[in-house]
């Protein structure tokens, strides 16, 4: 069942077309990730869905509810962590949570949220004294206080160290276990791959492609990149390249000194033949790897642009 449906959203700021035409739907209980480079329009999309920015065009439907008629109902159903984590700096996490709790008719107990976002220890420190990661976790906690069905997280891990990022991932997966629907944005392909049920890649205000991470990668190509390096030096890699080029399954090769890159649609066959060849010639292979395809390759394939975090 679709808990959220977005059709043909458009938004311009003066002459800038921030969102050109975006449509997608999110089903209950899924983690839906919007990924794209800076200025792609992610925040604008979220803010339109959250009812903060009126779209120039398009429809937003939360099941049977929409912003025109059911603003208060929707506000009770959603929890939001904005990109700039806004909260009262002079209050403690506990006080912030308690205050936000009074905005809602029913709220989860503050202690429970503190535990969920792992801030029990810091609950009595003023927010201005918290680290970036702790602030970010509190922002997620504030989004959770009303026990919402849908949670919007705008770049919850940007600027965090790897450990803190992993903490946030755990929280997001925890939300999924609780049956919540999460819509998040990120710059990190790795994060999108790890967390999401489905990924929506956006660039310049348009959906580039949308599917589950594995489907996107599979769709991309069945060509794989195999890397080898030889102990025997240049001669060995030269011979190996020569040999590989003669094989049907190899589409392309690239060599630099003793290391060799091969592209193939049948990596297992290639490796089998290649190792037979090196064994016969008594060449010693130092390293072998098959490069995994990632969402980065998906982005490059669709946009023709390099991906930068």
């Amino acid at each position, binding site marked *: 069942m679709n808990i959220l449906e977005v059709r043909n959203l458009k938004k311009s*700021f003066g002459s800038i077309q921030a969102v050109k035409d975006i449509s997608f739907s999110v089903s209950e209980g899924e983690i839906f990730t919007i990924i794209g480079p800076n200025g792609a329009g992610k925040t604008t999309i979220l803010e339109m869905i959250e009812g903060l*920015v009126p779209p120039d065009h398009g429809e937003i439907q939360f099941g049977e509810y929409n912003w025109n008629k059911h603003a208060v109902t929707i506000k009770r159903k959603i929890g*939001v962590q*904005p990109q700039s984590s*806004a909260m009262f*700096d002079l*209050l403690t996490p506990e*006080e912030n949570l308690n205050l936000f709790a009074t905005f809602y008719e029913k709220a989860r107990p503050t202690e429970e949220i503190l535990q969920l976002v792992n801030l029990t220890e810091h609950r009595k420190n003023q927010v201005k004294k918290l680290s970036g990661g702790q602030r970010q976790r509190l922002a997620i906690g504030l989004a959770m206080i009303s026990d919402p069905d849908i949670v919007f997280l705008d770049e919850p891990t940007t600027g965090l160290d790897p450990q803190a990022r992993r903490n946030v991932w755990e929280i997001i997966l925890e939300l999924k276990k609780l049956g919540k629907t999460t819509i998040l944005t990120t710059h990190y392909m790795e994060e999108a791959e790890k967390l999401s049920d489905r990924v929506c890649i956006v660039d310049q205000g348009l959906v580039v492609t949308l599917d589950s991470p594995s489907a996107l990668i599979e769709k991309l190509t069945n060509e794989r990149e195999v890397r080898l390096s030889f102990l025997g030096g240049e001669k060995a890699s030269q011979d190996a390249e020569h040999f590989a080029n003669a094989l049907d399954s190899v589409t392309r090769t690239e060599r630099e000194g003793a290391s060799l890159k091969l592209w193939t649609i049948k990596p297992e066959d290639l490796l089998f033949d290649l190792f037979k060849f090196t064994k016969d010639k008594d060449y010693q292979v130092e390293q072998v790897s098959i490069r995994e395809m990632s969402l980065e390759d998906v982005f490059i394939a669709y946009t023709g642009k390099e991906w930068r975090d």
Partner: protein
Amino acid sequence: MNNLKQFKQMFLAQLKLTLREKQAWFWGIFFPVILMVIFMTIFGGGSNDDFSTKVVIVNGSANETSAMMASQLQQIPIIEVADPVSEEKAKVLVKEKEVDAAIVLPESAQATSIKLIVNKENEQSVSTQVVAGVLSQFIQQANLQAVGATPTFQQQFETVSSGSSELEYRDFLLTGMIALSIAQGGLFGMVDLVDMRRKGLIKRLRMTPAKMGIFGLSDMVMRLLFSTIQIILLSLIGVFVFGANLFINFPSLLLVFLIGALAFNGIGYFISSFSNTNEAYMGAANIVSFLMMFLSGIFFPVETMPEWLQPVSNILPLTYFADGLRDSMVYHTSILATPFWIGFGNMLLWGGIAFIIGSLLYKRQSIVSTR
């Protein structure tokens, strides 16, 4: 019911925010107290008049008018009147700075000129200003009497020239300082709003079903509470440390206080509506505050200012706020007195217009520029 709960929680949060905001305490409480103490010790004096100015009177030919004036001058606490001398002698004394000024009284009961002789170097000094101010009051009164003075003016005349003298400047300064601190609280306090907007907190609150009206109300109640602390603290120091005399009419005071505080918060709100950074806000608020501080008769009566500036003072809300506080705290004026209502009208107009324009500006720029 739920509204009440929300209000309570929001007010509690505001209370904590205010208690933890050191800046608020410094500028709202500590600074006015220090300022008042400084002014009081310099000008309000303990029993020995720290601020006094020496003048000589030139009474060329004694007559009815000059006699009356001489006796009234003698009663003014901060003016030390030396024995009468001739005009030539007086000029010498002024030149040698033996005295701050010489006042040449009318030569006959019909004469219309009073001359003030001051040293050119001292022309801008406080003493000169005070003497000139006092003198211009006299002249005004004398003129009024000549055409048949009205009772209202008569009364004012008495408060200036007769009476408990030395206490007056303290009372004047104390009530002025209270007016100034409350006004500044309103003018500067709304920087919080800019800050909240800049940090995206307003936007954040709007994503929740929180009632922004209740939030605004709790904020306002907190500000009024803070101003109440200012008024009590400054009054206590004024009365117990500097011996000011207060004779308070509470209903009047309550009304002046409420209207004044709301008006200045309205002006602060207006400034916040077009300031995108804290610095921009503080700049604008400082200009407004600075102008009002010196033009609204806080430290010295409006009457001591140059004639051409006085019309400006007479449209500034702080003038009326200070006067209103003086009337209700020192003169025990009843709420029904007319000058009160002129003041209320002025403050309500300023506050109301500022608030309305501010609201329109807030609406117009909406969310787009609040990122």
